[in-house]
């Protein structure tokens, strides 16, 4: 096992070889985009059903799980192309989630 530093803090795309990165492969665009879309659709369906039938406890864990899945696949897509967007993306997801929680509470 090599004791070399891993590309965490000091690494940039230009200074470190690709083999040091978290994933050696580029996540597929069609695959991850499809999964992202499916999870987003399932999330919307679950929110709709959970709010309509007032199954709050079930909705809470389901919502958390699906939001994490959506962020995960979006992260894989961003990891593929543009790493600079992630901060803004997470912020916008956070904002949207907060809005939804407030809306569902009211």
């Amino acid at each position: 096992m090599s004791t070399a530093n891993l590309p965490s803090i000091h690494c940039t795309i230009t200074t470190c070889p690709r083999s040091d990165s978290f994933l050696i492969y580029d996540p597929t665009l069609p695959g991850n985009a499809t999964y992202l879309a499916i999870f987003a659709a399932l999330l919307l369906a679950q929110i709709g059903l959970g709010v309509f039938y007032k199954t709050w406890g079930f909705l809470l864990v389901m919502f958390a799980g699906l939001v994490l899945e959506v962020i995960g696949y979006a992260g894989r897509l961003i990891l593929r192309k543009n790493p600079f967007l992630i901060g803004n993306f997470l912020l916008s997801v956070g904002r949207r989630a907060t809005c939804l929680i407030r809306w569902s509470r009211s």
Partner: protein
Amino acid sequence: MLDPLESKLTRTSYFIPLGLGPASLCASIYVTFGRIVVVYSPSPNSATTTITAPTHRIFPFRPHIYALVFCTLDSIALSIQGVGGGLTATAATASSRNASTNILLAGLVIQAVSLCLFLCCAADVLRRVRAAGPDVPRNAHPALVALRTSARWKGFLVSVGAAAVLVFIRTVYRVVELSGGFEGSLAQAEVPFMVLEGPMIMLAVLLLTIYHPGVVYRGGAWEASRFAVLGREKRGSADSAGMGAQNDEEAGARCYELGRRERGSYATIIAGQAETETETGSEGRK
């Protein structure tokens, strides 16, 4: 230039959520299972009961014990995975990455073991339900009686079990994947990931969307199958048709309201039952 913080966020952004998402979904399966046990359990003492609850138990544990134990195991697994995932994504050296991957692995193993245990419990409950004859008293709440005999009930039971199996397959894949470390061949192969990670969870959630508990337990059954996760069930809380109903009269009134809103075939039964109970309740107090 790639900002260090951005770099960390990027790697963490995909890695941690995909680890924690399914753990959170497991909790929804466990909570739903508690509700299934309620449906097959004898009624708790309440005015809405028509059959007196026997002292013997059909199942080894009460519904809230199942939910409590599995949700606790799940949150332990989730926390360990979160810590392990965070440390793995931000590890500075190969050795620290290995150590944190092992923490992550421990979390995944706990999740896999608790899912396996859950499947055993579910099989045990199914066996006991099958073995028990029709004479064994079940929850006599009209909404739950209607639910047990409804066409959608069996499909719901199958889909909850299938969802648990699917999440279990995914978790076993993650355990095998990470036991080879991050440099392992399986961890750096995309096809197994795209087959065994995403679609398993998708199918599980799809089953729980088609047979959504709210849809399956519609017409007052969701309220009727409520159970207190912590501590003993308060009188009427598991059998009353309203959240936080103060007394049986109020519960009956809420049940009546639900029955009126629902236009299902069994809505009239609930409404009728609630009506008689409201009447007897008010007569008793006069």
